């Protein structure tokens, strides 16, 4: 099962770090990803530029309203994420705990949406049914039966 580990941080807190502290955080987080990579567990990672570079698109009537800035006006914002493979929720939590101990910020861990997985939430189950029936092109890529 793939899990996403999202890192939320406060830009003003990062700004207070000295250059060497900043470098040390980058290095240990990079090592964490490198270690997942070596074990074949790393799926995808991306860092995002600061919230000052964000634009937000909201549906308004029949049109779309575009505004500058991030969607959420919270102090801590999504700074980046890693998707990795874990055999169980416990393994995913153990992996994320390693990152939580070294990175600056708070982590949110969630299983990614897999229309073939056993899903606990009724809304996820509803969404999975819709994906299986209405995403022919996406399904052609991710259907385990179609691949084999």
């Amino acid at each position: 099962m793939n899990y996403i580990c999202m890192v939320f941080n406060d830009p003003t807190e990062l700004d207070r770090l000295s250059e060497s502290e900043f470098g040390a955080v980058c290095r240990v987080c990079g090592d964490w990803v490198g270690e997942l990579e070596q074990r074949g567990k790393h799926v995808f990672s991306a860092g995002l530029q600061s919230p000052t570079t964000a634009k937000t698109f909201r549906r308004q009537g029949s049109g779309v309203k575009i505004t500058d800035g991030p969607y959420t006006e919270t102090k801590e914002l999504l700074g980046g994420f890693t998707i990795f493979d874990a055999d169980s929720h416990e393994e995913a939590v153990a992996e994320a705990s390693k990152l939580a101990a070294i990175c600056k910020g708070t982590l949110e861990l969630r299983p990614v949406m897999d229309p073939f997985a056993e899903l606990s939430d009724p809304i996820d189950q509803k969404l999975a049914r819709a994906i299986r029936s209405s995403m022919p092109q996406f399904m052609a890529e991710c259907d385990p039966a179609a691949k084999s």
Partner: protein
Amino acid sequence: MKYACLVYNNPNDTASITDADLDRMIANWDVWMSELEKLGKHVFSSGLQSTVTATTLRKCNGQVAISDGPFAETKEILGGFTIIEARDLNEALIHAKKLAEICGGTVEVRPQFDPFADLIDPMDKRCAAAFKRSIENAESQ
């Protein structure tokens, strides 16, 4: 340049939508993604399970505290994302606008952090410099 399109939606909207409307929305999404794919502009997409499945990890006094639930208790939550390749922000905005029209939620677009890209924000520049130093240090060892 790569851009992240983050889709925020309200789970109550998904719960109350009819199956027919949900199927239509998902089908439109499929078309949007496969068009990007054909243009060679699709990098990576993933949906996320509901926030009832979320676990939050915080470092407090040198220890990692683990709790059930999402990081932020907001009405709309991050439901998924697509990373696209675009020449510039204008091209990214065209794709994002289409997504906002069909996805039934709010879309936030942000350039992906690339330490070698032209960065605007001073924090991003500091972060890029730190990344480059850490690469240089690793190479010199």
